């Protein structure tokens, strides 16, 4: 039950000083670039950039170690799964086959397959520092303001900020309910059979849902009393002014995105092929 959640980490760094809008735009551009490209050169460049920015942000590896371990084990499993399901995917994509050694049947190890899986792993690695940084350096309420700033309806932005605001509260509720139900003898651990466990889980979910529905009632009444949603616009307490650093960062991000797309697609294929 002690699973940790990633959340805002207060530090003094140039990254923290950037406005939430800037970081959101950069994050979106970064994920787009990493999503579209399969070009190893572009991916490596993006990876080096990500790591550099990560160092500037003064967030230490220890702060996020638990997430990293999680991601690394996911990537490992994912790579194994890809190999088991499709050991010839690389050969199919790159069109050549340099066999290193045979295992059995269609399972051999080719340079192409290794290269392909390296690229998939790189793709994930490129996004991870950017996404992690975005989460740990942007204050939740500033995040809502930035969503509104990039053109998302403020009501939706507000519900995102509500969600972020209430996750800790609901987590606390959940712990209380789970512990009191366990005190009454309801077992959620692996000792119980699956079907029984599913049934026991509902005895925790139901009170959680009903108390949350009450919360919805209370909050929407409070908002209604304060006239929420009457005007077309609203101001945000925690919005930051855009500074020169913000403009420069967005401009640089835009250039990187365009250049990486041009390099990726100029030869008509997403894949960089070193084999011919």
């Amino acid at each position: 039950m002690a699973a940790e959640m990633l959340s805002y980490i207060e530090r003094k760094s140039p990254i923290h000083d950037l406005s939430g809008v800037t970081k959101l735009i950069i994050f979106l551009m970064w994920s787009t670039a990493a999503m579209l490209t399969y070009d190893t050169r572009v991916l490596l460049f993006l990876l080096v950039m990500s790591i550099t920015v990560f160092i500037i942000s003064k967030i230490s590896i220890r702060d996020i170690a638990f997430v990293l371990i999680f991601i690394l084990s996911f990537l490992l499993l994912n790579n194994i799964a890809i190999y088991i399901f499709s050991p010839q995917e690389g050969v199919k994509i790159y069109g050549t086959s340099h066999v290193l050694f045979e295992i059995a049947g269609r399972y051999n190890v080719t340079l192409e397959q290794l290269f392909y899986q390296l690229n998939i792993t790189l793709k994930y690695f490129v996004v991870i520092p950017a996404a992690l940084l975005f989460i740990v350096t942007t204050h939740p309420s500033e995040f809502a303001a930035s969503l509104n700033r990039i053109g998302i309806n403020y009501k939706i932005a507000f519900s995102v900020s509500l969600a972020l605001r209430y996750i800790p509260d609901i987590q606390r509720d959940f712990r209380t309910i789970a512990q009191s139900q366990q005190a009454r003898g309801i077992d959620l651990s692996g000792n119980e059979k699956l079907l029984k466990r599913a049934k026991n889980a509902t005895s925790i979910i139901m009170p959680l849902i009903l108390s949350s529905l009450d919360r919805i009632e209370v909050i929407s009444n409070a908002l209604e009393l304060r006239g929420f949603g009457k005007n077309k616009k609203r101001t945000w307490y925690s919005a930051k002014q855009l500074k020169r650093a913000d403009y420069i960062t967005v401009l640089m991000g835009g250039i990187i995105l365009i250049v990486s797309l041009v390099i990726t697609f100029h030869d008509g294929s997403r894949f960089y092929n070193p084999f011919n």
Partner: protein
Amino acid sequence: MGKISIKTIVAIGIGAAVFVILARFVALPTGIPNTTIQTAYAFLALMAVVFGPIAGGLIGFIGHTLTDATAYGSVWWSWVFVSLFIGFFIGLVANKINIDSGILGAKQIITFNIIQAIVQAIGWGLLAPALDVLIYAEPANKVFVQGAVAGISNIITVGVIGTILLIAYAKTRSQSNSLSKE
């Protein structure tokens, strides 16, 4: 967008928060690697039925994005999009079921389950794998197997736990035909 009521907005926010908690803490391992019984989707189905398609879609989208972001530090957009899809389309039958009337008979339960099964089969079985291939160029057979496993386990989860939640929720509403003239 002007038509969304305050209650829907709050329901989206709180719903997304509950979705995150359920997805993180109440996922039961099935014994098959990487496959868990996601109670969060049963909850998503209930919220979609109670608050309608817009709330359902956005709870799925925001909830799944925040779950991915807080757990892995990065977001798998292909699967997040499927959560949006499922929440939205289950929400479309909300009017048909009209759960706030407090009446939930066999007919409504069957409607709900047929819809959720169809929507999830399309979502996990076709949409998620197709987007995975498109975005990440993962091998097609791998992602289709993953999608199928996730789809089947989620359809069963929503079918069993979701239905239990719907019945329990309906019981808390006063029935619209509970008054009689004397």
